[in-house]
């Protein structure tokens, strides 16, 4: 009997237990915990901003964004090395096919917010809610732009994909046309512009930041439509519109780029805090409060995010650790100056009492971008000298044609060395800042020049080690928006637009301390100005590609440096224009105007075919 009751009680208890298990788990953070309060949304957005594909100091064109990578100190492995604005450890082919960038996991994180956040709209004031949602749209556009500039058309995924709820067939999204992707980016940025406010929050987007990026993206689309229809590699992907934009779309995109750039006017301005134009241009990249900075990325030692720009752009003579391994070319310098005055009318090398005389009268912006021989950093002079001529009796051309061994040039007349400590009659053969006899060693310049842009001259030498630089990366500054505007204006070509381009270019030149342009300017004027203003900021690689001139500019091209020598019997310096020591030959294959889709993704999703032409 007793047992019977016991069983009944047990059954009763068993049923009752079922009612109480539906309790939200306390160890899992759910949407309503995140999307209903500012702290939650801020942290969610921080997780997105933290993974943005920003091509900053540590970005490498063949390795990617290097988050947490042990080789992320090698800041000299930067895209400038691919273009000839500097030379370093790359040949073009080493990095032209990218690194298999495919950030759809990050895009899903953004889509998750765009899909789910609106359910919690009433938890915020409309302004706050719109700002947050606008940032999500901005971030999604940023990711898609990073994709489209590499691959052309990629699959547009704006819904929330789920597996295993959806079948593999459903998830195998085919490519969209390149034009569709650019239009999608424009639409997302338009949403961002209309939703966001104009408050300037450090390292985050606002209305005008989105407009700035829209000007960049639309300019890319316009030039690809205009020039990609003339110079291209044919193939299935091109025929189907995955690689390439119809030429008749160009004007529409240039107009959109112009309008977006114009929208930013008055909300940011060129940095002009210091009357000394050279110092002003140096500080522009170091002053955190610059009104020119639009979208930035910050670094700190405490979070382990610090970079190594100071340690890897100049030689150990001025730093505490690291190596330099990329050096500006004389070719870039000549974009500013034309041929430097290093040769007399009779062809003999001009004699200098002091190396720093070379810098006299050069454009302040150039001097702020590049360290010339004779410049100083942290109290030390860039005493660049490749060697000593006991005498120099001929012309520069004759000496160079004979590989530094002219007829008057008896054996041992030119003394060079691979050893920094080697002396000749009590004098160093090579400078402490370079140059070696040959390219065997890195760390000291191979062109006679060093990068100055972004170098923190205020830092003590002892603090210029690896992972000790915390200067901000400026991913978008107002100068670029002005250049986007000028280029779009020139491409549109009407009289009022051309006049606008001229006034914009002269704003930049005035700030730079350069001679202002008068009269007719051409598209080449604007492009050269862009190369000068944005040197080493990782733009030129993409510019050469979108203008579709990379295969002409980099056609077995060699780049040059400026080599100082001391002449013993005259106690003077001369400078010779010689091929950079690495003797690299830069060659760009046309198929590299698009990177190949990553092989692993093609294997997973056959709908991504056809791959880009030539691959």
């Amino acid at each position, binding site marked *: 009997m007793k047992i019977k009751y016991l069983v009944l009680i047990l059954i009763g208890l068993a049923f009752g237990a079922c009612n109480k298990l539906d309790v939200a788990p306390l160890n899992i953070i759910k949407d309503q915990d995140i999307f209903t309060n500012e702290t939650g949304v801020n942290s969610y957005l921080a997780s997105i901003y933290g993974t943005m594909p920003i091509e900053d100091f540590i970005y490498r064109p063949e390795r990617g964004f290097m988050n947490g990578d042990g080789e992320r100190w090698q800041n000299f492995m930067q895209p400038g090395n691919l273009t000839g604005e500097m030379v370093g450890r790359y040949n073009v082919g080493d990095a032209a096919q990218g690194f298999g960038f495919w950030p759809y996991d990050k895009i899903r994180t953004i889509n998750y917010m765009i899909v789910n956040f609106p359910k919690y709209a009433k938890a915020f004031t409309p302004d706050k809610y719109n700002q947050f949602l606008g940032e999500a749209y901005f971030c999604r556009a940023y990711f898609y732009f990073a994709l489209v500039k590499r691959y052309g058309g990629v699959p547009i995924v704006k819904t929330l994909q789920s597996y295993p709820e959806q079948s593999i067939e459903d998830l195998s999204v085919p490519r969209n046309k390149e034009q569709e992707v650019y239009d999608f980016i424009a639409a997302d940025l338009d949403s961002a512009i209309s939703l966001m406010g104009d408050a300037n929050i450090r390292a985050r987007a606002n209305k005008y930041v989105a407009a700035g990026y829209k000007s960049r993206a639309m300019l890319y689309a316009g030039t690809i439509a205009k020039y990609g229809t003339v*110079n*291209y*590699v*044919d193939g299935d992907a091109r025929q189907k519109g995955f690689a390439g934009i119809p030429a008749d779309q160009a004007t529409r995109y240039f107009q959109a780029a112009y309008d977006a750039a114009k929208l930013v006017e008055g909300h940011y301005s060129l940095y002009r805090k210091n009357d000394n134009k050279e110092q002003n241009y140096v500080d522009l990249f170091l002053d955190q409060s610059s009104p020119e900075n639009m979208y930035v990325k910050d670094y700190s030692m405490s979070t382990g995010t610090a970079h190594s720009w100071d340690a890897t752009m100049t030689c150990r003579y001025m730093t505490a650790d690291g190596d330099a391994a990329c050096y500006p070319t004389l070719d870039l310098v000549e974009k500013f100056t034309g041929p430097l005055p290093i040769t007399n009318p009779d062809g003999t090398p001009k004699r200098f009492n002091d190396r720093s005389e070379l810098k006299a009268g050069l454009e302040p912006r150039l001097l702020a971008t590049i360290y010339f021989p004779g410049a100083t950093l942290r109290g030390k002079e860039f005493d660049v000298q490749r060697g000593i001529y006991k005498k120099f009796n001929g012309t520069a051309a004759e000496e160079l044609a004979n590989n530094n061994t002219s007829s008057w040039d008896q054996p041992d007349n030119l003394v060079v060395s691979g050893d920094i400590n080697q002396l000749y009659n009590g004098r160093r053969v090579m400078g402490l800042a370079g140059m070696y006899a040959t390219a065997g060693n890195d760390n000291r310049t191979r062109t006679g020049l060093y990068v100055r842009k972004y170098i923190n001259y205020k830092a003590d030498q002892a603090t210029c080690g690896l992972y000790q630089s915390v200067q901000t990366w400026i991913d978008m500054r107002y100068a670029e928006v002005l250049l986007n505007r000028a280029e779009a204006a020139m491409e549109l070509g009407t009289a009022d637009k051309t006049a606008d381009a001229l006034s914009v270019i002269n704003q930049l030149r005035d700030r730079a301390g350069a001679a202002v342009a008068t009269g007719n300017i051409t598209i080449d004027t604007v492009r050269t100005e862009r190369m000068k203003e944005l040197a080493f900021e990782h733009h030129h690689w993409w510019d050469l590609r979108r203008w579709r001139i990379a*295969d002409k500019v980099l056609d*077995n091209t*060699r780049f040059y440096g400026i080599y100082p020598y001391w002449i013993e019997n005259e106690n003077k310096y001369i400078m010779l224009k010689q091929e950079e020591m690495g*003797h690299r*030959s830069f060659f760009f*294959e*046309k*198929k590299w105007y698009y990177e190949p889709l990553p*092989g692993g993704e*093609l*294997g997973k999703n*056959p709908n991504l*075919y056809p791959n880009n*032409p*030539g*691959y």
Partner: protein
Amino acid sequence: MKKLINSLLVAATLCMATSCSKKDNYAGPDATFSGNLINSVTGKNLLTETGGFQIQLDELSWSSTPVPYNIPAKPDGSFKDTRIFSGHYRVIPRNGAFWPVDTTEIDISGNTTKDFTVTPYMEIKNFTWKLSGTTLQMTFNLFAPKTEGLPRVIDVQPFINNTQFVGSGATIYDVYTGPNILGINANYSDEMAKTTYTITVPNLLSGRTFYARVGVRVDDSNKKFNYSEIVKVDVP
């Protein structure tokens, strides 16, 4: 107990050992695919260089979107690969200095040969050379078999090497090629066809034997060269 464990271990070892004996029963890459690229104008092999074109193979036996496999050109205009999986392939010569051709499908097994006929963009005709002292002078005409839609002619380059493997990828570039490039940068015209061009390469090293040729390229997708034949130059 210990006995039981031991016997269990023995049994497990046997099981695992036998599971290793499964064999890969797919055939290895034992087929050979070879052939030539025939110049449709001359009927001879296309004048090219190592890697001057590729034969792209897409194996359709397993997938309609296979990973492409490329066989590079040999310097005599032929190609050969002795380690190909037998199967059904889509093949196309590509990335060379000739007008695009259509793909063909072919079964490869054993020893398969296939010749492709292509029309080069340009030909170097009436190629002659003479050596005066250490200066090499090469004269030639440019001829385009098909002019309609021909991309702009970029330049003619001299290639000089100290082996008979000479071309854009095997040349003493800095000294002999780079300074002596003949830029053209024009569309092909009747006038161009009538012009006799000369490329002069000075200061060849005395006492050496060089191999020389010239190549012309047009601004197509690949910018590869159409070559003259190779000549042997003994510099006194």
